[in-house]
């Protein structure tokens, strides 16, 4: 299936979860300093494993940078 991750279309296996996506995107699975929103709703870390992604969802995965 296709989801939009940080503005880019991405092919994921059916049944992929937020946790799975994050592992793909980052070496360190420890998610400190990282957060996720799916369709403009924040997904708490505690629910990453249990949150499946579905076709066409828009995922924003953000991390800390220098700023402000």
């Amino acid at each position, binding site marked *: 299936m296709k989801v939009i991750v*940080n*503005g880019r279309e991405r092919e994921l296996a059916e049944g992929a979860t937020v946790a799975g996506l994050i592992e793909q*995107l*980052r070496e*360190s699975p420890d998610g*400190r*300093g*990282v*957060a*996720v*929103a799916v369709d*403009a709703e*924040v997904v*708490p*870390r505690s629910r990453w494993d249990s949150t499946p992604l579905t076709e066409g969802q828009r995922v*924003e*995965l*953000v*991390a*800390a*940078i*220098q*700023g*402000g």
Partner: protein
Amino acid sequence: MVDVNAEGAAREPATGTLEIAGRRWGSRLILGSGGFESLELLGEAIVAAGSEIVTVALRRVDPGAQGSIMSVLDSHGCFLLPNTAGCYTAHDAVLTARLAREAFETNWVKLEVIGDDRTLYPDAPELLEAAETLVGEGFVVLPYANDDPILNRRLEEVGCAAVMPLGAPIGSGMGIRNPYNLAIVVEQAGVPVICDAGVGTASDAAIAMELGCDGVLMASAIARAQDPAKMASAMRSAVQAGRLAHEAGRMPRRTYARASTPTSGVPEFGNPASDRSS
């Protein structure tokens, strides 16, 4: 920041502590982490400035990049203050604050809702709306505001833990352009006032503190100085100087001179003319 606090206690005249939402810090200089050319320079600046609170921003994950800003701040024991830089609506700022809460496990946020990208001034109505929403969700909200006394009061009324009026546009280094407004904001505030943005050099920070601000937040003035670490030291001294001067109570101004040396008992040596002719 135990080290710095202890060191500070040994090293400097007490200038009280900065207390926001029940938390206390020995340093009144909040550092923005943006604009430093390397994390090493950022680290040096944190040490030289003696800052305990440091801001960070959130951006889309850059696959492969290390989130090493976190480790730098952790290694210096900094208190992370996430901001909502880059948000132009209350909606985006609120969502960004929620993401920051997840990412950093903190309910503190430096709230920025920008009105346009040439001035980077805040959008007052959107800022108020976002502040009210986030306070309602239990956030400790520190809003980046303009120097309008009315907006700053409204932000306090909706429950912000502090107000952060600007001195001049972000990154302009133009100093405190309107000290009168800043003085009024301070005078009427029931929460801490942090001067955010505009400081360009040490005297600007001293002026903000002399006006009665509880703290100063800066990034560019240090990050873009020719020698960031040395400027960080300058700012540390300047914030302290301004705070001490505020507490010490300055002398009154007067248009004319007033001798600091007694004018009585001056010796008299007779006629200069005769002496000169000799």
